[in-house]
């Protein structure tokens, strides 16, 4: 085992681990010996800038918000791909232009779908 070329690395790893864990252990030991812990309900309560927390942090959002996510995606992706398309427009061949138009058409379809569904009207 000692002849293994990685043996020194293993020793270094253990030393590094000890270097990290020893201060933590010492701090814990110190606190355990000297500091009586005095937990209470106010101390253990959730920190909310001094206010009492109300309700649960694990709230659920309405699934209907997926529509906004989709519309955001349409415009976001469109913007990301349209900018390089516009920059390289003069140097593009016919095939690239058509494929790009197909891509834009697909996104426009999504927009049209949202429009027909009536999401764009602010209720």
């Amino acid at each position: 085992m000692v002849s293994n070329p990685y043996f020194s690395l293993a020793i270094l790893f253990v030393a590094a681990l000890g270097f990290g864990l020893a201060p933590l252990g010492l701090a814990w030991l110190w606190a355990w010996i000297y500091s009586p812990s005095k937990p209470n309900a106010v101390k253990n309560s959730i920190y909310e800038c001094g206010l009492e927390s109300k309700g649960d942090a694990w709230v659920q959002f309405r699934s209907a918000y997926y529509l906004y996510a989709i519309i955001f995606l349409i415009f976001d992706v469109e913007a990301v791909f349209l900018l390089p398309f516009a920059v390289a427009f003069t140097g593009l061949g016919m095939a690239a232009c058509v494929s790009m138009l197909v891509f834009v058409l697909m996104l426009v379809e999504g927009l049209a779908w949202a429009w027909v569904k009536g999401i764009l009207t602010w209720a």
Partner: protein
Amino acid sequence: MAVDNELKIELGKQGVFVTTIEELYNWGRRSSVWPMQFGLACCAIEMIATTMARYDLARFGAEVFRPSPRQADLMIISGTVTKKMAPQVVRLYNQMAEPRYVIAMGACAISGGPFKQGYNVLKGIDRYIPVDVHIPGCPPRPEALMQAFMTLQKKIDEQSLTGADRPRHLDAEAQGEFPVPEPGEHDLEPASNPGVWPAPVVIR
């Protein structure tokens, strides 16, 4: 103390350094008193100035203003405590881990200051939580805050780990929870914490 101070200095000159656990412990505590990032009123502006380059509170190991009471050691009550804010202040103090210290900064935090007659002003935060250092002033200058800080450091340095006068965090019997006041019909209820601030008896 096992080694008296003069012998210690003499030994130090010879390159021999002796210390005690107590000294090491207090040195560690006083050299990294982290205040809570928490300002109440105009005194907070002076507190902010104290931490900036011109006054540089970092020299005393207190530059790290923690945004959470879990990591803070020192609460600087910097300004007027209204009765609306007092429950939050006391709750935050309760949420700090021991050892914890309080500096009441300015006339308002000490006694209500110029707003003492106000219906909604708490007449001193020491009615609810134990204050270590009071600094007068309206507002106190940054130098005054540093003076308070050094006073607190001296106070920490003089604490002993054992004995009857040991600090609260080392005393298992000492009170750990300070009741959070509730807004009542006319005043906060309770109006003060008798364990911290015995209400003066008015003799007519």
